[in-house]
């Protein structure tokens, strides 16, 4: 069932250390109650694709929030802000975790929420979604879309990213869905295998799906890596997973 009418707004919520950050919110029209989804944007920024994805979840009956992880870099076009963040070596992992917990808490305080919240992120946002899920008990499930650098070499670690997310796997406290392209270089198939092996080792509940003929970012309809068949199947899996764990 599609929810054609929706309420869309930008709100301010408390992120890491109580800092005020903006968030884009879309939910179906009406009193609810709706399951919640927190979207964790990628390093190309808090951009149009993430706003569209937020509305897509509302169209499917979810109350969705996408918070601006790059708030502190200043106002501007999303690509300019993302370039500034890139030049600064990215954002600190701890800050992203704090901001995302803030978005989840904000969602949980809304009267139209059904009490369930899932998290999803793609690319670097997929990495942060997994990292966040390993640091919280506030979400009911996680979708990681081709998270780059979940597995990191020692030389890739920085003060902002001091620990590879895979090291926190044992703390994951909710079921997880992971979608990956077999032609991706980051994460490459070997890294996806390591990621899965660690989940298996710690007895976590997860589903991994690997797509042939797809590389990185195969959901992005405005980029050359878009793969329509794999993307459509992937979205189906995302919605089936959220319906199973968040209800509707």
């Amino acid at each position, binding site marked *: 069932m599609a929810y054609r009418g929706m309420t869309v707004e930008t709100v301010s919520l408390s992120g890491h250390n109580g800092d005020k950050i903006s968030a884009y919110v879309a939910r179906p029209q009406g009193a609810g109650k709706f399951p919640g989804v927190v979207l964790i944007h990628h*390093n190309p920024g808090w951009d149009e694709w993430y706003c569209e994805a937020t509305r897509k979840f509302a169209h499917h009956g979810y109350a969705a929030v996408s918070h601006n992880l790059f708030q502190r870099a200043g106002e501007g076009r999303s690509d300019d802000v993302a370039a500034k963040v890139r030049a600064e070596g990215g954002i600190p992992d701890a800050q992203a975790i704090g901001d995302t917990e803030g978005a989840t808490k904000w969602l949980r305080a809304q009267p139209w929420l059904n009490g369930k919240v899932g998290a999803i992120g793609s690319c670097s946002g997929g990495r942060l979604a997994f990292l966040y899920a390993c640091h919280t008990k506030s979400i009911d499930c996680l979708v990681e879309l081709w998270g780059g650098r979940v597995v990191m070499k020692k030389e890739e670690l920085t003060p902002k990213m001091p620990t590879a997310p895979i090291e926190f796997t044992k703390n994951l406290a909710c079921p997880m869905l992971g979608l990956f392209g077999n032609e991706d270089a980051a994460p490459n198939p070997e890294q996806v295998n390591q990621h899965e092996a660690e989940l298996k080792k710690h007895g976590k509940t997860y589903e991994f799906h690997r797509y042939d003929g797809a590389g*990185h970012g195969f959901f992005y309809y405005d980029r*050359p890596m878009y793969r329509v068949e794999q993307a459509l199947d992937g979205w189906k899996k995302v919605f089936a997973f959220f319906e199973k764990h968040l209800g509707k």
Partner: protein
Amino acid sequence: MCTSVVEVCGAEGAGKSEGGWFPVTSAVVSYDHPHHALLEEAITIDFVNPTLGPGARAAVEITLESAKALAAALARAIAGAEEMEDRRGL
């Protein structure tokens, strides 16, 4: 970014962004997902002035091959410029 290829250096001059010309203070060279070029990865060069905010950015996103050609062209132009400066110094 899903790569960690980012190089930053000082750059003194001027660049043009949507808001017009601005004083440039640094250049950022990375290999990452481009925002606009229809490539999976691109060499992105940003001439920026962080003190003026994110919009003070003159950017290009080009293929790796184009970047190699650009680096060679830059090296040739620098060699020519240095030769000229040497002559001027005589």
